[in-house]
């Protein structure tokens, strides 16, 4: 992870750390006044992030404590990626980072400096749905639709990883994505069909 952290970002962070240290030795009155000062708070709270999401480059500042999930939803306004637990237990927030599936709630946005993220919004080719998306519709691989983006992102990766050689293997490697409506058998159908027909690149 460290290797991907750009020097520029580090220097910037160090600069702020110095400012923070300076403030710490300043008079208590100044610190107190500073607590509510948005500008100072923003200075300490945010660090720069360069990230590519669905083929689009973003260069902006984020709080280090912001998860990749909250960053995608609340700052990029891409609401297709869902929050189902925020603890990496349900898979609803699954996105691809450099082509691999991860739970975006377990990754801080700043850990993804220089990386390529694909969310559900980036899967289709314009109006043309990804084969996995089509297969989910055909096999009714969802009901409420909330876990669906995570299921589909996970399903695409599942095939790319080579983990879709049998129904049982799919069931095992898709068990990180909970579907409370219980569409599991249909999800397996969708993945097996997509696998059979080939072409799962994202």
């Amino acid at each position, binding site marked *: 992870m460290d290797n991907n952290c750009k020097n520029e970002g580090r220097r910037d962070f160090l600069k702020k750390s110095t400012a923070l240290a300076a403030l710490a030795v300043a008079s208590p009155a100044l610190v107190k006044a500073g607590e509510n000062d948005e500008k100072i708070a923003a200075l300490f709270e945010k660090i720069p992030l360069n990230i590519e999401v669905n083929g689009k480059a973003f260069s902006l500042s984020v709080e280090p404590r912001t998860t990749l999930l909250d960053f995608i939803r609340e700052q990029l306004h891409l*609401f297709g990626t869902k929050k189902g637990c925020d603890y990496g237990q349900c898979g609803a927030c699954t996105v691809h980072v450099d082509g691999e599936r991860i739970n975006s709630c377990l990754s801080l946005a700043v850990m993804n400096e220089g990386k390529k993220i694909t969310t559900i919004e980036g899967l289709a080719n314009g109006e043309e749905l990804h084969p996995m998306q089509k297969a*989910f519709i055909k096999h009714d691989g969802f009901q409420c639709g909330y876990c669906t983006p995570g299921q589909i992102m996970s399903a695409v990766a599942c095939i790319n990883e080579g983990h879709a050689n049998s129904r049982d293997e799919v*069931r095992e490697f898709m*068990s990180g994505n909970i579907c*409370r409506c219980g569409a*599991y058998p249909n999800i*397996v159908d969708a993945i097996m069909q997509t696998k059979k027909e080939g072409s799962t690149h994202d």
Partner: protein
Amino acid sequence: MDKIKDQPFIDRVDGVQKVTGTAKYSAEYDFPGMVYGVLATSNVTKGTITAMDTKPAENAPGVLAVITHLNCPELPGYKNLPDQSKLADIKKGYRVFYDNIVRFNGQPIAIVVADTFERATYAASLIKAAYAKETFNTDIDVAEKSGKALEGNNFKEYVRGEANAWKNAAVKIEAEYKMPIEVHNPMEIHAITVNWESDTKLTMYEKTQALSSTQQSVMRAFGLKQENIRIITQFIGGAFGSAFNTWPHSMAALMAGKKVGKPLKLMITRNQMFNLVGYRPQAIQKMSMGASADGKLVGITHDATAMTASYNEFTEGIVNASRSLYNCPNVNTTYKVYPLDLSQPTWMRGPGETTGAFALESAMDELAYAAKIDPIEFRLLNYAETDLEDKKPYSSKFLKECYQLGADKIKWSARNPEPRSMKEGDWLIGYGTGSGIFSAWRGAAKVGARLLPDGSLILASGVTDMGPGTATAMTQLASETLGLHPRDIKFEMGDTNLPPGPMQGGSGTTSTLGTAVHNVCQSIKKKLADLVKDNPMFHTEIVHEVKVDDLLFENGFMMLKTDKSKKISYADVIKNAGLKEIELQEDSPGNPMANHSAFSYAVHFVKVMVHSRTGVVKIARCVSAVDAGKIVNQKTAESQIVGAVVGGIGMSLMEEGIIDHRYGRWVNNNFADYHVAVNADVPEIEVLFVNKPDPVLNPMGSKGMGEVGIVGFAAAVCNAIFHATGKRIREIPVTPDKLI
């Protein structure tokens, strides 16, 4: 239209939105200047808040407001409450920030509003409270021994024939069945976005299964005019009953949004999903049943004990199935509910019946074995031809067909009925069955319809959809009734500005709304026929005024039944009449079912594999045969039953809400510790529909199906485990420790 096994279906009309991530749920509306609400909650179980320190939170960066009981805005709904000092605790209810009383652990004590989610979350962690703690009880076993059960009309004993007649039967069993708290846990965490346009007008995006009742409760609480509250619920990410109430977090968000005068979003946490939005109550049920030597039921005694919160009298029909599922002359039931110092339970999929059928259908299996009669044969011997509780004939009942269809499919008769007789390697094999019953009904609904100049149709109703596919089913119904291609129909929903629709739930949405859609389509046909009655094209030598019955409506055209070449498109009818469009609203009344009892039925067959040394249970195969009347959309209907069965797998093998009674706190309030069924837990699930219309309930002939698919399933699993192992498990979930 495509067909599955000769049954029609259309793909979900909202499928593309759901697979592309463009379907909008309640936390997914964007407004400039959006702020975030986060709740701080109590860490004691019972007592009063004696002091609060909110200053650090208020001073934290980005914080705009902190609301607690100390500075809670004056709400008309709070002011107009009856004198609280004169009410019993159970009648007082619980209103967020209304007083300093703590009624359950994890109760909201403050909402913190900040400009980002992270800042609000951090600031909420700074809220401190001091409490005067009181002793509490969260344990149903303790309450049963030393507590006082609730009293009133909901708890009257039911007696039909002779009470406790089972005692005199030739064959009898007595057994106690236990099930824990079970939590809905829909994948979408409950969320709300509120946007006050002024002090008296707002739009809210809320996760609700019932737009109208949510609107009413907000109206009462804030003293607003109904027309000034717009609620939008385009999509619900599952609910299963958790989204009927207007929960405390929603009220908190509404207060906070109004106070800061900015659009506000609040999504509770997965932890909070366990105690802020209801759950299925824990229950202990004693079944005492007797039958004659030739297998006729003599008596059923069903004594149920359940729990509720100290501030909310929640009851459900746990003992109902025991009164109506079988032809038993003597039935008596009791229902006791103890208030505990926990948050309130609520309806959860198959409310009441799911709990009751676990006990009844387990006991039926025990009695069948005791009488040495095949469990299916035993049920057929006690088949109810009329409803003995209501003393009415059934509107339709195809339960016998369900037994037959399911038994044939799973090859029931090929099993060796002897317990612990079937094996595959280290695995013991067992087959079990359990039946489900759930009321079918039809309520009132309004639906608006506009047939546009291009011949396309827009239907509109203020219903919401948590996943069954209401818009899809309604589109299909309208397509079949009006003779339009599904792609030319749009079903608008999820908005209080639309004609008021029914709630989504109770297995009555399709029956209720479908009737309104059916009727409005018929009205459009009449209107179209009326517009062409003088059109000479349709006239024959004898007939000079064409009527709706003389016409066929197909593919956007109306044509003479006797000569299909004489046809005109709906678009041309509208154009020729010089109309802008045809607009109608249908006010469809409920069906009181004065002369009939109506139920949906399901019979589940389960094959289990139990590992002989570790006690691990695998569900190897499920076959569910369902009488839900005529099926509207085969594809979504199958999915709904499959989903209910998956819920049943979780209920029987893994779902268990655990409270640490020493502290009154949840132990496993997250998905790592509260296990639900995942993909690897679920085998192929075969769904069979009798698919015969109910002639009474509604014009489609449909009954309900959302609930009945889970009712009786847990019993089928336990019965299969008994067949596999010879061990009778009467407490779910059946975790491996119970089998070794």
